[in-house]
């Protein structure tokens, strides 16, 4: 890594104005599309896993086109860890909450005791909440895997 940086340090291959500008313009749309894929999973192909990967890939793209620091400026490590944990907690929390409210594990109908709605509507909303948790977790894990592997764990420099 050090040798590569010395060789290309002055003019790295990836340090390209066109790439940087394109990525800077694209990243907000990629993130919007990722959220759309998560939220629209009920009606079109997609869902938590796919949308989460798209969201995570937007941060990886920033790290590739700029550098690791820029990527970490857009999504700080602490927030990322919190989002990942919250994502898994949403899924498991809803499942346990259903069981605590007297239904079966992951039986969304039991949540009607909190907000009264028809059973089918709670199924639909429960799936949405669960997919949201999956999306958050996958996004956070994707980004943190890349950051850790690319920088060797010190988050100082990398791709």
């Amino acid at each position, binding site marked *: 890594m050090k040798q590569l940086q010395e060789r290309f340090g002055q003019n790295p291959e990836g340090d390209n104005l066109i790439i940087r500008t394109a990525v800077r313009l694209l990243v907000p749309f990629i993130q919007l599309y990722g959220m759309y894929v998560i939220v629209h999973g009920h009606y079109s192909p997609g869902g938590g896993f796919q949308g989460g990967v798209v969201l995570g890939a937007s941060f990886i793209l920033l790290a590739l086109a700029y550098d690791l620091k820029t990527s970490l400026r857009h999504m700080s490590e602490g927030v990322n860890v919190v989002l*990942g944990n919250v994502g898994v907690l949403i899924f498991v929390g809803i499942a346990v909450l259903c069981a605590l409210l007297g239904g079966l594990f992951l039986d969304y109908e039991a949540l009607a005791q909190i907000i009264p709605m028809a059973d089918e509507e709670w199924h639909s909303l429960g*799936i949405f909440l669960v997919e949201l948790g999956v999306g958050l977790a996958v996004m956070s894990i994707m980004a943190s895997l890349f950051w850790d592997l690319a920088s060797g764990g010190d988050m100082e420099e990398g791709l």
Partner: protein
Amino acid sequence: MKTFALLATLATGIVLLYGTGDFAPWGDPASPASSHVSPGYIEEAVEETHVPNLVTAILGDYRGYDTMFETVVIYCAGLAVVSVLRRSRS
């Protein structure tokens, strides 16, 4: 040891290949996979969950347990990588 491993692999492979002979034909409507629970999903999923996308309905509702542990597996993988690799500056 390598010969033994090769032989064991070959034997397992032959048994598995032999087993594929009993599979139902591709796309057979009478096969157990498409005659047991699939028709129920196709007929009732939209009514029961109000989700037009069958894949999402099955993934998030009927097979929610599976999806939950998929998420936990990904979470554990990330946790393992972070706890092994992440180190502070000092």
